[in-house]
């Protein structure tokens, strides 16, 4: 965002080595992530014991880590988190749902967009505690089993990604837009996706993907309907 605050270094928390032998990079990292989470959860549970109240029982959470329950893509996840944990961190590092991306970490780029009770939010600027009791939908929740959501199919058809890092956020923003407005105008599409930044500049293909997913003709002229 043309924000007036300085930009920030995004820390890398991903192991650099990739093992060979039939393990994909993603499945390897997911396994590493899950065991790390399990180990952390176990030590915290041991340290805290079962006496640690979950946030649902009290109006006070913290300052020690505690248990919360988040309903993500229809499944309830019990997570042990520090109160300062954002929803993005809870999803990526605690629930091992790495589809939600961290980029600017200041609510300015939209890469971490998810739906909370159907509303599009930047999960990096929402405390995980704020999402307790709500329905959270991440990019992993768009497909029904092996069947992709129509907006995902449309993104593929229109090659609506280059590096792909903004794609989960753009998919969620497109999904939210079409849920509110099943047949948006070109201008409404631009407004609905205005909180998502694509560094590769693939906006025109994204707009076309949304147009087609809403039953409209894609544009031949990428500059817009009047250009």
């Amino acid at each position, binding site marked *: 965002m043309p924000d007036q605050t300085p930009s920030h270094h995004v820390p890398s928390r991903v192991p650099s080595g990739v093992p060979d032998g039939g393990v994909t990079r993603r499945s390897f990292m997911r396994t590493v992530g899950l065991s790390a989470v399990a180990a952390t959860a176990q030590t915290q549970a041991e340290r805290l014991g079962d006496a640690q109240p979950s946030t649902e029982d009290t109006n006070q959470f913290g300052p020690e880590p505690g248990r919360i329950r988040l309903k993500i893509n229809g499944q309830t996840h019990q997570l042990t988190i520090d109160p300062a944990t954002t929803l993005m961190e809870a999803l990526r590092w605690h629930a091992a749902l790495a589809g939600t991306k961290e980029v600017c970490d200041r609510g300015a780029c939209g890469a971490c967009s998810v739906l909370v009770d159907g509303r599009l939010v930047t999960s990096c*600027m929402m405390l995980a*505690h704020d999402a307790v009791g709500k329905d959270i939908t991440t990019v992993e929740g768009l497909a029904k089993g092996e069947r992709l959501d129509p907006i995902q199919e449309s993104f593929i058809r229109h090659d609506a990604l280059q590096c792909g890092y903004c794609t989960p956020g753009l998919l969620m923003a497109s999904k939210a837009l079409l849920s509110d407005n099943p047949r948006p105008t070109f201008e409404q599409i631009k407004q609905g996706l*205005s909180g998502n930044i694509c560094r590769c500049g693939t906006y025109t293909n994204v707009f076309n993907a949304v147009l087609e997913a809403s039953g409209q003709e894609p544009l031949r002229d990428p500059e817009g309907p009047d250009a």
Partner: protein
Amino acid sequence: MNRFTIATATSYDDASAIVKSDRFALPILKAGGMDVVDHLKEGLWEPDALVDVLRAEGGAAAPIQEHREAGRSSIRLSALTTLDEIATSTLIQARCPALAQSAGSAATPQVRNVATAAGNLLQRPRCWYYRSKDFDCLKKGGDRCYAVQGLNRYHAIFGDGPCHIVHPSNLAPALMVAGGVAHLTGGDRDSIPIAKLYHTPDRGVRDEHNLKPGEVVTAITLNAAPNSGFYAIKEKQSFDWPLVMAAVALELDGTRIANARVCAGAVAPVPWMLPAVGQALRDVSIDDDAGLKAACARATQGAAPMSDNAYKLKLLPVAIRRAVLKAAGKEVE
């Protein structure tokens, strides 16, 4: 972010009581959290507790309501009404379009779904020296405003300092021209007009508002202003902080402007009323473009731009004229 406790307030009075009690050393009120979380991430604030008012009304904000009495209409928002709810409310769009437009123009869909009305009014300035922990500026107890000798492209063109922030609220200028009032609990008064909510930096540089510790905004009311409009000029029009913004409320007699209230934003440390422009707009026809331009040109009287922001002198009259046209129901690009 530092380690803290989240204390969930069950009501606004509860929130106020927690803040005023000695239960926590440095409690900070939080609603949507957009600005609070930003301060925490930047290390600008290190509270030992966030007092969460998101559930102060039982989980969902009270609906936007219209109250009619003796032929006059007023609108009531909850402090927790989101910017998106304001922008998309057909009631607000009809009764105070400037407010709906100001909310819809702010930030992004993602932010508007979370950010609250009271939070928008009480957010801290976006000055890059204030927002950077490395600059010990006046607002943080330091001895100077770095914008004076430094980079001040986005700073104030009005006001005598000593701090040269612009107030960032989109809603405040619209509420200023619509007689907005913030309703309070936890103090010795029930309400404060938005026109008295803020102070200039010479009257206290560490904060921007006149609320006392423990005072909590519970609701906002405003008068109907059906002929009102808002216009913001940004470097990236779809999503950016405004370079200048203007809210205008008109009383029209046919095409003649019978009365006009004009408030500018992003040009001064507080929402900046422009009574001289309102006066000059009186009796001008909304079809008289030269007359409108002449009246709006008065907006920059008394301005004192800094080294890098004189461009705002050109933008401000344009934003006001476009807000006037929108207030009169005309299409503006």
